C-alpha cells in the first residue's frame, strides 16, 4: 500500500447529521473533500466521531445532486431546467396567484433541521413577511415538538438542561425511548465511559437495544414496556416515589409550587398507578418498576436522557411532562450530573425550535399572539404581521386534502417518506397546485413538486447549528455550492421575489438579527463563536459566554410547575386482525430518510429496512429469518424482509424508515400527540404475513407519479 496523499486544506466545521453536533475538520485535496477528521477542541465530541460524520460525507458531490433549478406546470410532466431568476419568478407568481384565489392562509412553508439556524430563521421570515401568514413549521414537529411543549410547561424551557459532559458526573442514568449508541453515537460513547466508571443505568425501551445490553454497558433495570404505556410506567415510578416519600421536599418547596405538587401527588399516588396495576398492563414486573424508581430517586445525581420513544406518541407531550415531574420531585435539576435532556434527532433540531419556525411562536419561544413580542418584530421588519397562530405541518396536509391548502415551500425535508400515513400525505401533495422543494436530490416529495430549487450541503455554506445541548457551533464553507447559491441566499431571493426587499452580505448578519430580536440569543454572534469555538444559549448580559447548566438558581418562570399527567391509552389498539404492535426507529449507519447516507458507503452495513420480530411471532406465522413479509395496518401495507431478533419482545415488531422503497410510513397511523400533532410513529397495530413465494402481492399503494 503506497503512502496516503496529504490533504492540502483543513476547515473546522460542524457535522450536519445528528443532534450531537460534533466538531470536524473537513480536509480537501484539489478542492474536493477527501476526509473528515474529528476536531479535538469540539466541545460536544472532544475528538471523537461516528461512521456518519467521519466517513459518510461524499454524498455532497454524488451524481444524483441536482445542480440547476427546474420548473414544471404539472407533476406528470418532465422537469424543465431554468435559470435561478426564472425559478424564483415562477414560484412567486404561483404563490401570489394561489393566495389571491384561495386566501392568504392557503400557502405555507416548512424549514429543515438539516439547515443552519440562519436558514431556518429566513424560512419563518419568508412565511411571515413573504406569505404574510404564520403557516410555517419545521421538522421537529414530527420528532421533538412534544419536548418543546412538555419541558416548557414544566421547567419553562424546551431544551436540554445539561451539557453533554455533565453525564460524567451522573451516578444514575435513565435512558427513556432512546438508543444513544445508535442515534447519538458519540454521546453514546461518553455515556458508556461513565457506565464503565460505575454509574447505574436504567433503560425504558420496548427493545433490548445495544444501550440496554452490550459488553460493558448493561442496564441495572431494563423496563421493556409494551409500546404506548410510557405515561403509565412513568406515573407508576412517580407513585413509588411519592408513596415511599423518596421525593426532595426541600427542593420542591424552594423551587416549585407545593400546592401543585400535592395535586400531582394525589394523581400519581392513586392505586391506579401502583406498580401492581401498571405492571401487567405494560408487560413489566412490578418489582422492576419499584427498583427503577428507588434507584432514580436515591441518585444522588440522577440524569434523564430521552428520545423519540417518548415524544412520538399520542401522549408524547404528557410523557415529556412526566419526565419533568420526576426530575422536579427528586430535585434532579440545576447542578452537574442531573437534568432532563432530549436527544434531538437531527443536527439542528434545537435550532429549528429556537428560531421561531413554529406556526404559533417567534424566535425564543414567544407566542405570535403576544402583542408586545409581535410589535417588536413588526418594528424591526417594518411590516404588519399575522397575529394568529398558523397551520402546523399535519394541519397543512389535512387542509390540503380538504382543498383549502394549495401551495407549500419545503426546504430540506421529505415528508412523503418521513411523515406518517403516507397515503394521506400523497393525497395532500396531489391536491396542491404549487409544491416548491429545495433539496440536494430529487426526493420522494420532489415527485409531487412543481418547482425544484437545488440546495447546498453543509460543506457548501456558512452558518451555525444548535445541537441537543443548546451548543451553537460554526458551519464553514469548505467548497463552493454546486448549484451556485447557498441555501440562505435562495430563501432571501424567494423573499425578494414575494416583494419584500431583503439583503444580507453574510449569515453573521442574520444571527445578529436573531440576537437583536431574542433575549436568549442576545449575546450570540459569529465573532463570539469564533473566539470560544462554540456557545451554549442562553447567551446574554447575564451569561456573556453562554450557559452550560440551566435552572441553577431560577426557572424561566421563577418556579417550575407540576403538570397532571393522567394516562390516556392510545386509541391505536391491537385486535385479532392486527394483533402485533409496530414501533419504528433509526439505525447507526443510516440517517433519517437516508437521502444522504443511502448515497455513501454506509449501505455496506444497512442496505434495506428490515422488520425485526420475536422468534415466537415469526414461528406462529411460518416466517423464517430473511423471508419477504407484508406488514399491514388499518392505514396501509408494505413489504419488508423479516429478521428474527432477540432484541424484541413477543407481540412487538420493529423497523426503520431509511429507504424509500420500503415505505415503512405507509403503515404508520395518523394518530398524533394531543398538544403538538407529533405523529404516533411508535405505536401502530399491524399484522405480519409471509409473502406467498409464487405471486408477488400487488402493491395497493396508488401508482407513483413519474419523477
Amino acid at each position: 500500500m503506497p503512502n496516503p496523499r496529504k490533504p492540502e486544506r483543513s476547515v473546522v466545521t460542524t457535522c450536519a447529521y445528528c443532534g450531537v453536533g460534533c466538531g470536524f475538520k473537513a480536509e480537501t485535496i484539489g478542492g474536493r473533500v477527501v476526509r473528515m477528521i474529528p476536531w479535538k477542541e469540539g466541545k460536544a465530541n472532544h475528538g471523537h466521531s461516528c461512521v456518519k460524520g467521519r466517513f459518510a460525507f461524499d454524498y455532497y458531490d454524488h451524481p444524483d445532486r441536482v445542480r440547476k433549478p427546474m420548473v414544471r406546470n404539472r407533476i406528470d410532466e418532465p422537469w424543465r431546467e431554468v435559470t435561478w431568476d426564472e425559478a424564483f419568478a415562477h414560484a412567486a407568481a404561483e404563490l401570489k396567484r394561489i393566495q389571491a384565489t384561495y386566501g392568504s392562509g392557503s400557502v405555507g412553508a416548512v424549514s429543515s433541521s438539516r439547515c443552519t439556524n440562519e436558514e431556518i430563521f429566513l424560512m419563518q421570515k419568508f412565511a411571515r413577511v413573504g406569505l404574510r401568514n404564520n403557516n410555517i413549521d419545521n421538522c421537529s414537529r414530527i420528532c421533538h415538538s412534544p419536548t418543546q411543549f412538555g419541558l416548557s410547561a414544566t421547567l419553562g424551557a424546551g431544551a436540554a438542561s445539561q451539557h453533554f459532559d455533565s453525564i460524567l458526573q451522573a451516578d444514575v442514568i435513565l435512558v427513556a425511548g432512546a438508543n444513544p449508541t445508535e442515534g447519538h453515537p458519540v454521546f453514546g460513547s461518553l455515556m458508556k465511559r461513565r457506565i464503565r466508571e460505575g454509574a447505574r443505568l436504567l433503560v425504558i425501551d420496548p427493545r433490548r437495544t445495544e444501550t440496554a445490553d452490550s459488553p460493558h454497558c448493561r442496564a441495572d433495570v431494563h423496563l421493556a414496556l409494551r409500546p404506548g404505556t410510557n405515561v403509565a410506567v412513568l406515573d407508576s415510578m412517580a407513585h413509588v416515589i411519592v408513596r415511599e416519600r423518596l421525593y426532595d421536599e426541600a427542593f420542591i418547596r424552594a423551587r416549585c409550587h407545593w400546592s401543585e405538587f400535592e395535586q400531582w401527588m394525589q394523581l400519581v399516588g392513586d392505586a391506579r398507578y401502583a406498580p401492581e396495576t401498571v405492571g401487567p398492563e405494560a408487560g413489566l414486573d412490578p418489582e422492576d418498576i419499584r427498583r427503577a424508581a428507588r434507584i432514580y430517586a436515591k441518585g444522588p445525581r440522577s440524569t434523564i436522557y430521552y428520545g423519540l420513544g417518548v415524544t412520538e406518541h399520542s401522549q408524547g407531550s404528557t410523557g415529556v411532562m412526566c419526565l419533568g415531574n420526576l426530575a422536579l420531585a427528586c430535585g434532579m435539576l440545576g447542578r452537574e450530573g442531573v437534568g432532563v435532556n432530549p436527544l434531538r434527532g437531527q443536527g439542528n433540531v434545537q435550532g429549528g425550535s429556537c428560531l421561531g419556525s413554529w406556526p404559533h411562536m417567534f424566535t425564543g419561544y414567544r407566542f405570535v399572539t403576544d402583542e408586545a413580542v409581535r410589535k417588536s418584530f413588526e418594528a424591526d421588519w417594518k411590516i404588519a404581521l399575522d397575529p394568529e397562530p398558523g397551520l402546523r405541518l399535519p394541519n397543512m396536509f389535512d387542509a390540503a386534502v380538504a382543498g383549502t391548502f394549495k401551495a407549500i415551500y419545503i426546504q430540506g425535508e421529505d415528508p412523503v417518506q418521513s411523515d406518517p400515513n403516507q397515503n394521506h400525505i400523497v393525497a395532500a401533495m396531489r391536491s396542491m397546485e404549487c409544491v416548491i422543494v429545495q433539496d440536494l436530490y430529487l426526493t420522494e416529495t420532489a415527485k409531487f413538486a412543481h418547482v425544484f430549487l437545488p440546495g447546498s450541503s453543509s460543506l457548501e455554506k456558512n452558518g451555525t447549528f444548535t445541537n441537543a445541548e443548546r451548543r451553537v457551533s460554526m458551519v464553514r464553507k469548505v467548497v463552493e455550492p454546486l448549484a451556485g447559491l447557498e441555501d440562505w441566499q435562495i430563501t432571501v431571493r424567494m423573499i425578494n421575489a414575494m416583494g419584500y426587499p431583503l439583503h444580507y452580505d453574510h449569515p453573521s448578519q442574520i444571527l445578529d438579527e436573531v440576537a437583536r430580536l431574542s433575549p436568549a440569543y442576545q449575546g450570540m454572534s459569529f465573532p463570539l463563536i469564533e473566539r470560544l469555538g462554540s456557545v451554549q444559549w442562553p447567551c446574554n448580559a447575564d451569561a456573556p459566554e453562554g450557559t452550560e447548566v440551566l435552572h441553577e438558581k431560577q426557572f424561566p418562570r421563577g418556579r417550575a410547575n407540576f403538570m397532571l399527567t393522567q394516562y390516556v391509552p392510545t386509541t391505536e389498539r391491537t385486535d385479532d386482525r392486527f394483533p402485533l404492535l409496530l414501533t419504528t426507529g433509526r439505525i447507526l449507519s443510516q440517517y433519517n430518510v437516508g437521502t444522504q447516507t443511502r448515497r455513501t458507503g454506509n449501505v455496506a452495513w444497512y442496505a434495506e429496512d428490515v422488520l425485526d420480530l420475536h422468534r415466537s411471532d415469526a414461528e406462529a406465522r411460518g416466517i423464517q429469518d430473511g423471508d419477504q413479509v407484508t406488514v399491514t395496518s388499518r392505514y396501509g401495507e408494505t413489504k419488508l424482509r423479516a429478521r428474527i431478533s432477540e432484541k424484541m419482545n413477543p407481540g412487538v415488531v420493529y423497523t426503520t424508515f431509511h429507504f424509500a422503497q420500503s415505505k415503512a410510513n405507509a403503515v404508520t397511523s395518523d394518530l398524533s400527540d394531543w398538544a403538538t400533532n407529533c405523529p404516533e410513529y411508535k405505536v401502530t397495530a399491524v399484522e405480519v404475513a409471509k409473502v406467498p413465494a409464487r405471486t408477488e402481492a400487488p402493491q395497493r399503494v396508488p401508482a407513483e407519479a413519474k419523477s
Partner: protein
Amino acid sequence: MWSELRRLRDDVDYGTPPRDGAPVSLTVDGVPVTVPAGSSVMLAATSCRKSVPKLCATDTLEAFGSCRVCLVEIEGRRGFPAACTTPVEAGMVVRTQSPRLQELRKGVMELYLSDFPASEVPGGWSELHEVMAATGVTTSPYPTGQNHLDAPVDESNPYFLFDPAKCIVCSRCVRACEEVQGTFALTVAGRGFQSKIVASQGERFLDSECVSCGACVQACPTHSLVEKSLFEGGYHRAQPPQA
C-alpha cells in the same frame, strides 16, 4: 472537572490525558514547569515545548508504555523511565535529551524498522515518520529475518483499510476502541513477535463488531489504519441500491 476531555488542544498532543490535580512544579531540561498532579512527565515536557518522541502515547488515551521511544532520565532514579507512564513529582529534574537516550531511542526505532516496509519510509508523513526524523533512523541494521511484510491488507470496510505490514502493535487502536468508543471490537491476538491487531475473533473489520467510528484510524500513528479516500483512485464511489 473533566480536563481529560476539555483541555485537549487540536494543535498539540500532550501524549497523556490532561489531569485535574493540584499544581506540581518540576524542571524539564532546565525549564521550570507546573502541571496538575497525576499528569505524566511527558505532558509536563510537552507543556514547556520540550516534547519527547512518542508512538504508543496520545493524549486522548490512557498511557500504555509499550513503544519505549519516550524514555527519559530523572535525577536520583536509576534506569530510563518512560515519560508517558511516570507521574510528575514535586522537584523532579528531568532530562529528555542525552547521548544515552538518543542511543536507546535509535535502538528501538531500528527494531521497528526491521519489520516495516522499507518502500514506505520515503514520502510518509505519519507520526512514525516524524519519530524517524527526530531520531535520525530511517533504515534497519538487522539482516532480514521474521517479518509481517506480506500480511494481507483488510479492505473490507468501505472507508478505511488496515495494512498489518505497517502496524507496530502499539495498541492505540485497541485502546481507542475501548476507552473512546466503548465497543471493544479490537484486540491483540497472539503473543510475542506473533502479536497482531485483530477485529473481534480474527474477522474482517466489516464482519466484526466494529461500528466504523474511525477512532482507531484517528489514533493510528503509522497510517496502517488509514482512510481509503486518501489514495489515488483507491476509493471508488459506492453504488447506492436502486432508489
